[in-house]
C-alpha cells in the first residue's frame, strides 16, 4: 500500500507540474483587444439587435473584440453590485435612472462632461428631465443619456366607450373611469394597478405622489417628513382603489413586473400604467385589440403632471483600461445616424433625450407615439424636488413606497400608522447612507 500510495502521489505531482508548465507553451493566436459592454436586454428584440449590430460594426472598424453581456430590468443592480465588489466592471455600461447617483459617489464612474457637451453639439440640447439623472450636483456628467423608456397610461378605448368613460387626464378621473366601467357592468376589475415590488408599483406611486406635490426630500436633497396631508391623500387614493372602489383585480398586489402586461394583453383589464412594451407586443403581433388601445400621458394631479422616469444612460467605468475606445463607442452609438437607426427599430419604445433626435418624423406615426414622445418632459427623478441622491435611490430600491401601500391594503393598517413606519424607514436611509 505504501509503495502504491507513493507511486500515486508521484504521478499526481508529475501531472500537476505538467499541467502548470504546459499551458504557457501552447501557442496562442494573436487576439484583438477586448472591450466589455453591458447592455439592458429590453423587451424589444429588434432594438437589442440593432444596438448590438451597431456596436459590432464600430468594433470591427477599430479592430476591437466586443464582449457584450446583458442584464434585465430585474437584475441590473444585482449585476453591477456583484461586479463592483469583485472588480469585474465592464468598460462601458448602460445604467438605469438611479445608477449614476449611486455609483458616482463610489468613484466608479469616469467624468464624461466633455463627451456630454459633444453630444449636445451633435444632437441638440438634452431634455431638462434628463439632467438630474446624468448630471451631478457639482455640474459634472458621469453618464450621458441614451433613451427614456416611458411609463404610459394604456387605455382600452372600446371598453371606455362602452361605459361612457373618458380618457383620464387626472388621477381622480382614473378612479371615476374605473368605477364607471365597473358600475356599467363592462368589466368587474378594470384598473390594473399593483403596488408591488417592481417599477410598475413604485414608479406609478411616484407619479401619483409628485403630481400631488408630495416628496420625501427637500430641494437640497435632505430628508423631509412625510407625515402630512399630501401623503395622506396619496395613500388614500392608492388604497381606496382596492378597498373602497374594488376596481383592481383581487391578486394585483402580488403581480410581478409582467402581471399587468399579461392582464391587459389578455383583455382582463381596461387600463393600466406600464412601459410601452404592451404596445410593442400588440403592434408586432398585430393583435386585434391594437386598434382599441391608446397610449396616453399619465394623469395630472393638484400639483401638475409629474411623472416618474426610467432613463437609460451610458457610462464608462473608472476601472476601464480602454477609456478612449469606450468614449468613442458611446460617441458612435449616439451619433445621429446610429441613434436614429436604433430608435426606428424600437417600435416606439425608446424615446431620445436629445432635441434633434426627438424631432424625427418617426414619432408622428399616431397619437400613441406622440404621447410616448411627450411623456419624458414631465419626468421627475426619485427624491424630487431635490436632486437624485444615493439615499433617494435607496428609498425606491427598497420598496418603501409600495410597502406603505401594502401595509394599508394587505395588512389592514390605518394610513397614519403605515405612514409612520415608512417615514421612519426613509429617515433611517437618509441618516445611514454613506457619504465617505
Amino acid at each position, binding site marked *: 500500500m*505504501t509503495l502504491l*500510495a*507513493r507511486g500515486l*502521489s508521484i504521478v499526481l505531482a508529475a501531472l500537476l507540474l505538467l499541467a502548470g508548465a504546459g499551458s504557457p507553451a501552447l501557442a496562442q493566436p494573436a487576439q484583438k483587444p477586448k472591450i466589455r459592454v453591458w447592455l439592458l436586454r429590453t423587451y424589444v428584440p429588434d432594438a437589442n439587435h440593432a444596438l448590438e449590430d451597431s456596436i459590432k460594426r464600430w468594433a470591427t472598424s477599430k479592430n476591437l473584440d466586443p464582449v457584450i453581456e446583458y442584464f434585465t430590468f430585474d437584475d441590473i*443592480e*444585482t449585476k453591477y*453590485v*456583484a461586479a*463592483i*465588489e469583485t472588480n469585474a466592471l465592464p468598460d462601458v455600461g448602460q445604467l438605469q435612472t438611479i445608477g449614476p447617483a*449611486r*455609483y458616482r*459617489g*463610489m*468613484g*466608479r464612474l469616469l467624468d464624461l462632461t466633455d463627451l456630454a457637451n459633444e453630444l449636445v453639439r451633435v444632437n441638440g440640447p438634452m431634455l431638462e428631465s434628463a439632467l438630474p439623472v446624468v448630471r451631478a450636483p457639482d455640474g459634472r456628467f458621469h453618464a450621458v443619456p441614451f433613451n427614456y423608456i416611458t411609463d404610459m397610461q394604456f387605455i382600452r378605448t372600446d371598453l371606455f366607450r362602452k361605459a361612457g368613460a373618458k380618457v383620464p387626464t387626472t388621477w381622480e378621473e382614473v378612479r371615476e373611469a374605473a368605477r364607471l366601467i365597473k358600475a356599467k357592468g363592462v368589466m368587474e*376589475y378594470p384598473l390594473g394597478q399593483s403596488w*408591488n*415590488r*417592481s417599477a410598475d408599483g413604485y414608479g406609478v406611486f411616484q407619479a401619483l405622489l409628485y403630481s400631488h406635490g408630495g416628496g420625501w426630500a427637500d430641494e437640497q436633497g435632505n430628508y423631509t417628513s412625510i407625515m402630512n396631508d399630501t401623503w395622506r391623500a396619496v395613500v388614500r387614493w392608492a388604497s381606496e382603489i382596492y378597498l373602497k372602489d374594488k376596481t383592481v*383585480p*383581487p*391578486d*394585483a*398586489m*402580488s403581480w*410581478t413586473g409582467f402581471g399587468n402586461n399579461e*392582464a391587459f394583453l*389578455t383583455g*382582463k383589464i381596461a387600463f393600466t400604467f406600464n412601459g410601452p412594451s404592451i404596445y410593442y407586443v400588440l403592434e408586432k403581433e398585430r393583435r386585434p385589440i391594437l386598434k382599441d388601445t391608446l397610449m396616453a400621458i399619465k394623469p395630472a394631479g393638484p400639483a401638475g403632471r409629474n411623472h416618474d422616469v426610467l432613463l437609460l444612460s451610458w457610462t464608462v467605468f473608472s476601472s476601464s483600461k480602454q477609456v478612449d475606445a469606450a468614449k468613442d463607442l458611446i460617441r458612435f452609438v449616439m451619433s445621429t445616424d446610429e441613434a436614429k437607426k436604433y430608435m426606428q427599430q424600437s417600435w416606439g419604445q425608446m424615446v431620445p433625450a436629445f432635441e434633434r433626435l426627438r424631432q424625427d418624423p418617426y414619432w408622428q406615426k399616431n397619437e400613441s407615439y406622440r404621447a410616448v414622445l411627450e411623456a419624458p418632459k414631465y419626468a421627475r427623478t426619485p427624491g424630487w424636488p431635490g436632486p437624485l441622491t444615493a439615499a433617494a435611490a*435607496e428609498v425606491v*430600491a*427598497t*420598496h418603501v413606497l409600495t*410597502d406603505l401601500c*401594502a*401595509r394599508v*391594503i*394587505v*395588512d389592514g393598517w390605518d394610513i397614519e400608522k403605515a405612514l409612520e*413606519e415608512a417615514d421612519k424607514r426613509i429617515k433611517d*436611509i437618509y441618516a*445611514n*447612507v*454613506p457619504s*465617505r
Partner: protein
Amino acid sequence: MTKPSAWRRVLVADALVGYLFVLPLIVLVLGLVAYPLGNAVWISLTDKYVGYASRFVGLANYVTLTRDPIFHKVVWNSAVFTLASVAVKVVLGMLMALALQRALVARSFLRAALLVPWVIPTVITALTWHWMFNALWGFINVTLQGVGLVREPIAWLGQPATAMAAVITANIWRGFPFFGVCLLAGMQAIPRDLYEAAAVDGASPAQRFWHITLPGLRLVLLVTTLISLIFTLNDFNIVYVLTRGGPGTATHVLATYTYEVGFQALRWGKAVAVSMYPLPVIAVMIVIVTRYLTRED
C-alpha cells in the same frame, strides 16, 4: 541499529504521503467553507456598503435588526414557511415511499414520475405555480369557479394567508420526492423477515408500520428532515418568483430579505447579518443530529 532507522524512514514517508492525500481536502475545507464563513461573519460585523470600504461596527447590525419590524416579520414568515413545508413534506414523502414500496405494477414508471417535481428546475416549478394561482385565469380559480365551488375569484397570491399557503404548497410539491426517495431507500434496508415475523404474530399493517417501519427509518428520517430544514430555510427561488416576498411583506423570508438588503439597499453588512441569524439554530440542529448518529453507531 539499521532496521529501526529504516522503519522510521518508512513511517515518516507514510505520514507525509498521508498528509499529501489529505491536503486537497484540507484546502477545500479551508477555502470553500472556513474562509467564506469567516469572511461572512466579519462582514456582518462591519458597516460594509457596496462600493465603499467597510468599518468595524461590532454587533450593531445584529442589534439594528432586533428593532427592525420587517425583520421580525421575515423571521416569523421563515419559521412558518420552513416548519409547515417540512412537516407536510415528511408526511407526503412517507406516503410516497409506502406507495412505491407496495406498488405491484409500473413501479419504475411511478418512481420516475414522482421524482419529476424534484428534478425540474425550481424556477419552472415556481412559474407554473404562479400561473396556477393566478386569480383571473389560473387553473385553480378557473376550476373552482367552473364547478361552482366559488363565485368570486380567490386572490391566492394577493392575500397574506393564502400567499403564504401558496408558496408553502409550491415548496412542498417540489420537495416531497426527496423524502420519498430517501425513505424508500431506508425501507428497503429493513429486513423482510421482521415483517414476516410480525405478520405471523398477527400484527396489523398499522402496527407493523409503527413498530417496524418507523423505528427502522429513524436515522434516515432524522437526516433528511435536517437537510430539508436547511434547504427550505434558505429557499429563495420559489418565494422570489411567486411573490417577491409580497403582498407587502407577507411572504418575505430570510433569503429574499437578505437579497433585498444586500443587492437593492447595497447594505452588505446588514444583509450578511440577516443571513447569519439562523446559523446558531442550524448549528445546534446539526450538533444534535451528529451526536445522535454517533451514539447510534
